[in-house]
């Protein structure tokens, strides 16, 4: 039902290919599809609009129009931008030397504060903290009892006072209790409240003022739609919370709310709830969330496919050979085959920051590759394995056999030797990252000129 982005983009791309031309309109069309995907994932309207503009600018900067795989390129740009937006850094809970450090849980009704409070207590206990829970939801029927039961399940004490209706008083008594009982962390569960309920918002602001918590966590249901930003912003304006908790992420929601909230209040998402059991708590992974928003795991594999089209294990083998000075014409052939497999040099190269510009006025000609191949294929097995054998007579024979001129054969040999040199140089570079490896064909392109 929710078509994934890959399929949609493939469709758009097919159309583009059918037209045989990549235009500004095509890019817009791709971006429109992405826009729809983001709306379907509940990313906020304004956030999407800005995001799409950013991606468009980036795509233009990367010269997407000139690449033969614009879809893949755009997807890569989007994925990168999304991860960037989601926040690469993962920050934990802040503690101070004060006994106890106080964590205040806030959010809308039914967002999952109580369950998450218990999960967090269990999690922190496993990290060596000594938590106490405080039941400050004095409104919802049986909310206090709920926390009491959860505390029992995880063997963590819960401070309650069934006769007290003032959360400030309850939580201050809980602080006292924590001090007397060597509890270094206090987690305060509060009632769910609407951001527009002034009285209730004032109540939680008073709670903040009185407790001066080390950490305020805003708990939000991952299934939330467009309203997520309104609520997050209102809570943030009032409380300046430190982190976001995304609950019920074990459902099949795409969770665009996460992105919206991050974009609007710029507070890290610290945890996610991924089940009803009390150990179903996870530190938040921005990268996974990015792919989830774009359509489950598909997008990751799509990007990976684009990246893997330059076979890294193969290029690793090549490096190995180079280091041992064993790069021969068979390897050269294999290398050319790899480049052909990438479908398009410029398409792949334009994924490398900076490389797109480098190639700007350079037409990539697949025919060059075919020519080189035909020359090598006319070499004997021995000649391919031992490039030094190629004397004048052998070169003549190869030229005749492949239907090339002797000059062309010589050019291929020269290219091969330059290639050897270049790759030897490359393998001396300590760089092992993918980008380094992908620069290989970029340099190779210069050799072909």
């Amino acid at each position, binding site marked *: *039902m929710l078509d994934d982005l890959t399929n949609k983009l493939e469709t758009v791309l097919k159309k583009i290919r059918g037209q045989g031309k990549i235009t500004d309109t095509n890019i817009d069309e791709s971006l429109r599809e992405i826009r*729809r995907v983001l*709306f*379907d*994932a*509940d990313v*906020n*309207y*304004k956030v999407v609009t800005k995001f799409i503009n950013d991606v468009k600018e980036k795509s233009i900067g990367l010269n997407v129009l000139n690449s033969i795989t614009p879809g893949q390129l755009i997807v890569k740009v989007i994925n990168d931008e999304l991860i960037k937006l989601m926040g690469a850094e993962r920050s934990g809970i802040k503690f101070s030397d004060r006994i106890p450090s106080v964590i205040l849980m806030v959010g*809308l*009704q*039914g*967002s*999952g504060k109580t369950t998450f409070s218990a999960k967090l207590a269990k999690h922190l206990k496993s990290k060596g903290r000594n938590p106490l829970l405080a039941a400050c939801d004095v*409104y*919802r*029927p*049986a*909310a206090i*009892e*709920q*926390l*009491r*039961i*959860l505390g029992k*399940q995880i063997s963590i004490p819960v401070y309650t006072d069934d006769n007290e209706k003032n959360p400030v008083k309850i939580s201050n008594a809980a602080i006292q209790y924590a001090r007397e009982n060597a509890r270094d962390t206090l987690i305060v569960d509060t009632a769910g409240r*609407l*951001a*527009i309920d002034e009285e209730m918002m004032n109540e939680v602001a008073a709670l903040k003022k009185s407790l001066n918590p080390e950490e305020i966590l805003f708990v939000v*249901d991952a*299934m*939330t*739609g*467009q*309203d*997520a930003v*309104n*609520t997050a912003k209102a809570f943030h304006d009032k409380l300046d919370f430190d982190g976001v908790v995304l609950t*019920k992420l*074990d*459902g*099949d*929601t*795409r969770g*665009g*709310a996460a992105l919206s909230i991050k974009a609007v209040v710029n507070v890290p998402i610290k945890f996610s709830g991924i089940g*009803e059991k009390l150990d179903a708590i996870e530190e938040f992974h921005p990268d996974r969330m990015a792919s989830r928003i774009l359509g489950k795991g598909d997008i990751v594999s799509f990007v990976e496919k684009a990246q893997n089209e330059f076979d890294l294990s193969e290029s690793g083998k090549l490096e190995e050979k180079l280091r041992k000075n064993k790069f021969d014409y068979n390897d050269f052939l294999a290398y050319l085959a790899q480049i052909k497999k990438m479908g398009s040099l410029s398409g792949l190269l334009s994924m490398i920051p900076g490389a797109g510009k480098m190639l700007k006025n350079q037409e990539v000609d697949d025919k060059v590759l075919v020519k080189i191949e035909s020359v090598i294929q006319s070499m004997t097995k021995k000649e391919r394995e031992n490039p030094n054998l190629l004397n004048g007579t052998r070169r003549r024979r190869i030229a005749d056999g492949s239907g090339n001129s002797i000059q062309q054969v010589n050019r291929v040999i020269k290219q091969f030797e330059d290639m050897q040199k270049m790759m030897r140089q490359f393998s001396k570079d300590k760089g092992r990252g993918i980008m380094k490896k992908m620069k290989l064909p970029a340099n190779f392109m210069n050799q072909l000129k």
Partner: protein
Amino acid sequence: MSFLDKIGFGKLKEGLNKTKDNLIGKVNRLVNARGVIDDEFLEELEEIFISSDLGMDTAELLITRIKERAVTDKYIDQKELNELINSEIRKVFYETTSEFKSFDFGLKQTPFVIIVVGVNGVGKTTSIGKLANNFKKAGKSVLIGSADTFRAAANDQLDIWAKRADVEIIQSKSTSDPASVAFDTVNSAVSKGTDVVIIDTAGRLHNKSHLMEELKKIKRVIQKVIPEAPHETFIVIDATTGQNGLNQALEFSKALDGLTGIILTKLDGTAKGGIVLKINKEMKLPVRFIGVGEQIDDLQVFDSKSFTEALFEK
């Protein structure tokens, strides 16, 4: 006597005021500012629709229709434009005539069994308390069955609501099998001659097949006692829910062989609950009630006409 009369129509408007401010207030301002349907206008309309969680498909459908109507009708002023948009939105609602307009309707069979389902924390238990209260006030005897044997203190919470509504409740402290509580409840209702049975269920995410199986079992055991039951199967949807709401409705419907209505809760907040339009459109599943607060009176019968009118009221 109609239910709306009983609770006063003002409350509905009050509950929807924020929604009105957001959706229609914007449209009004938009019409005032532009006064003509051009691309920019439609784009802003799109923003309003998307921001209300209508979803891209529904937004596009509405915009296409409004565009077409604008060409054929050659609309003139703001009032007409509002009416046009209003009527197009209302067309998306799947309308049924609901006997719930008053709670003293003649039950086709007693006990009349209602099952309430939904994902975690949407407001099932609260809505059940409110429903029970309404039936009770309409002179019907009510028995609530507490088939949430999973969530901590779910029993206590429902118990409090039963007391507030002054109705009977069956809960089992000993069993953790929700189906057997449902069975006991319906059995007891039959022997006591109770008019209405409402079964509360534990919140569950619709993609968890073992939990959906559990629901099927609840329904099966109820049918062992009353083959025609359940007479109503309500899904509760939180107004803050985004596009996932459709998945929720589809999956619960699949597990239970169909649903009979939506209870849309938390409309007293800033969320618009626009996802129900998409559910209406895709599943022809009507909204039956709306929740507009945490108090026992904060439940209203949904009626697309007054709902949309309240939305568009100045």
